[in-house]
């Protein structure tokens, strides 16, 4: 690499030059991004194994694979891992890698804090696994008391693990906000920022205002479990709704923490593969902020049947429906973006298109759930399970894969194989819908969630769901194979294989340790496809061999 790099030695290093640099307290945002991505993907596999255990048990109502408290343990850990150790850190990792590149910064604002945020995930993740080994975290990822106060020791470890993960996200969010608002190249105004930066800023605002509330609630839970405080125990005069209020004050906005970065990724991918400027830049940017604000006004829609004041249901129903408006604005802006474009169906693009349709299904079932009469009917049924998987898997995970396929060439310097990518996509898409669509039907007919068995009339729907989940498990294999093979001998990507706008594509792939030797200059629309020439070298990189032209058969404009 270039000579200007300060080569760190010992336990604190900067830059990824050799393999061991990735296993150490490294302050380079690109290394940290990869660390996040690899760790969270590992947890995705662990969470996936847990999901397959659940589906195997539920294949038939009489199965005895995991029953009773062991089933509860598995479902709790599946939810907790997928949310806190897969989706949130995976987005943090992708953003960590690309955000400084996109805004022309040489690193994040606080490189050491950035590394600390990542390394806090290690004790968090280890404690989470320890809670599983000890046993006891059986109250679901929502950990409602009084159950979560009376479960065995593992629940305490679970809560402590979540505190570590919470600190990690808070430090990460502060870092993102300062980076985005204070580290941009001077020539990049707020409305010239890539939409991913807007989305990550909105996400970080939610984290800054929401996650500490979860920390407080968890602290009360730990006090209750360790010191016998009666916060949440009705028998001692406490208030179980206090937990629900504090928990959902964080955890409803947390669903936007898990989807807004996905919105940002989609807003990058769609214009690049439609060869058109994004439609409604400002609407997309401001609706992200609107979601961040409105997200804090809807939490009690999770508690319609929990014994809250019935009068309060109406305002929360209204706010929950209002929040669909900024989301709808985005959907239509994306449709406007691809409308009349020269679409290139790369794997990244197919994941992005699948994201739109799957997320719309999840969003619509969300509006169903926001309305009080329907919610009372389907509360705690598989309808809710279907809804949340359509937004979190059909939404967040599809967006993550769209982002991974899009930036993999930038991160590794190698192209992923498109045919294997398509296999991955179609298996995922079919497996996902086969798994979760039937759960809408089972839920509407009253099948309760979080139980290891069910009435025999639900057998057909559940068997379908289980078969779909096996398909989903198989779907990940071509991706793993593809990624490993590309790392070893994939086609060399060159600086800008997608011929995309964005400062990250003006650098070599992978970028040098110090991203920008001289501050780049930004002029005009960040998505000027078809309106002005692609900035930067499309063909002459700093990296070794000559660049490859656009890999897909159908070239852009």
């Amino acid at each position, binding site marked *: 690499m270039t000579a200007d790099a300060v080569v760190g030695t010992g336990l604190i290093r900067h830059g990824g030059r050799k393999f061991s640099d990735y296993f150490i307290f490294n302050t380079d945002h690109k290394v940290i991004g990869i660390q996040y991505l690899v760790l969270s993907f590992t947890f995705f596999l662990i969470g996936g194994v847990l999901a397959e255990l659940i589906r195997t048990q539920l294949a038939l109502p009489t199965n005895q694979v995991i029953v009773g408290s062991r089933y509860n343990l598995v479902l709790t850990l599946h939810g907790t891992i997928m949310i806190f150790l897969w989706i949130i850190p995976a987005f943090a990792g992708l953003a960590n890698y690309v955000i400084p590149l996109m805004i022309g910064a040489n690193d994040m604002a606080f490189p050491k804090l950035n590394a600390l945020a990542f390394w806090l995930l290690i004790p968090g993740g280890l404690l989470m696994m320890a809670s599983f080994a000890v046993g006891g975290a059986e109250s679901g990822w929502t950990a409602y008391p009084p159950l979560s106060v009376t479960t065995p020791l593992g629940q305490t470890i679970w809560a402590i693990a979540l505190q570590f993960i919470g600190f990690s996200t808070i430090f990460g969010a502060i870092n993102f906000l300062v980076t985005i608002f204070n580290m941009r190249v001077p020539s990049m105004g707020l409305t010239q920022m890539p939409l991913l930066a807007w989305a990550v800023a909105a996400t970080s605002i939610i984290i800054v205002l929401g996650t500490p509330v979860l920390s407080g609630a968890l602290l009360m839970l730990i006090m209750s479990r360790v010191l016998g405080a*009666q916060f949440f125990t009705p028998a001692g005069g406490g208030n179980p709704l206090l937990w629900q209020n504090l928990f959902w004050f964080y955890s409803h906005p947390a669903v936007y923490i898990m989807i807004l970065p996905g919105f940002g990724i989609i807003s990058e991918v769609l214009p690049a593969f439609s060869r058109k400027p994004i439609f409604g830049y400002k609407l997309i940017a401001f609706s992200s902020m609107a979601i961040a604000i409105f997200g804090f006004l809807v939490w009690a829609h999770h508690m319609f049947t929990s014994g809250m004041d019935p009068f309060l249901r109406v305002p929360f129903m209204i706010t929950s429906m209002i929040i669909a408006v900024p989301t709808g604005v985005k959907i239509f802006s994306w449709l406007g973006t691809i409308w009349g474009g020269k679409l290139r169906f790369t794997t990244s693009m197919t994941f992005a298109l699948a994201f739109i349709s799957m997320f719309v299904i999840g969003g619509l079932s969300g509006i169903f759930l926001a309305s009080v009469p329907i919610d009372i009917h389907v509360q705690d049924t598989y309808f809710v399970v279907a809804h949340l998987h359509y937004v979190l898997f059909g939404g967040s995970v599809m967006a993550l894969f769209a982002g991974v396929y899009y930036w993999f060439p930038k991160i590794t310097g190698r192209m992923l194989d498109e045919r294997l990518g398509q296999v991955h996509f179609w298996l995922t898409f079919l497996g996902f819908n086969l798994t979760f669509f039937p759960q809408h039907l089972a839920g509407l007919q009253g099948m309760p969630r979080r139980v290891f068995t069910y009435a025999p009339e639900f057998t057909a729907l559940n068997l379908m769901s289980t078969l779909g989940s096996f398909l989903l498990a198989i779907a990940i294999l071509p991706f793993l194979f593809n990624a490993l093979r590309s790392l070893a001998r994939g086609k060399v990507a060159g600086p800008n294989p997608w011929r995309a706008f964005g400062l990250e594509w003006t650098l070599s792939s992978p970028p040098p340790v110090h991203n920008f030797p001289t501050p780049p200059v930004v002029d005009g629309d960040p998505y000027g496809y078809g309106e002005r020439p692609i900035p930067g070298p499309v063909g002459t990189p700093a990296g070794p061999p000559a660049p490859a032209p656009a890999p897909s058969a159908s070239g852009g404009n």
Partner: protein
Amino acid sequence: MSEVNSAVPVHEQPIGTTGLDNRKLGIWLFLATEVMLFSALIAGFLDMRSRGPSGANHVLNIPLTAFNTWVLICSSLMVALSVAAIEQGKTKRLRNYLLLTLLFGGTFLSIQIFEYIHLISSGELTPWGSLFGAGFYTVTSVHGLHVFIGLIWCTLTIIWTMQGKFSPKEFMRVEVFGLYWHFVDIVWIILFTIIYLL
């Protein structure tokens, strides 16, 4: 913590697009997270107190804690004076005021621990014994932890002062520590009012 042997590139300018120093923007955002943390804890405390018998705070020693509040306010004054000292380039004075901050902060924490020991050993107020106790110990212990972290931070700042890291042009670390300390102080004034006086 030294910047010299740090692996971080040194050519980064801390002053950013907004004209603010990164560290200042960062600490304000951190304080925003702290506001939310204490809001949640205070909400929990108020809920618990409203459910318990009224007058549960009569077991608390108000004169002693009033004195303790005064001690903490004094420590905040010392921090303000230390920032003023380094603005004028008076490093020795900075060190002395920070030492006084440490002294006042340490006194506050000692009195709080003394109060805890008295309340728990006499059985007058315990985290498990009453709803008021649950709320009281949760909120005040988190605040005490913040004071404790502040004392460590203050000690580090004193070490940096003695290493000659600060000048009238570069004392952002003192300012950032000061913002944190003032925040912890303000939170205590709110807690004292809500828990002891009301």
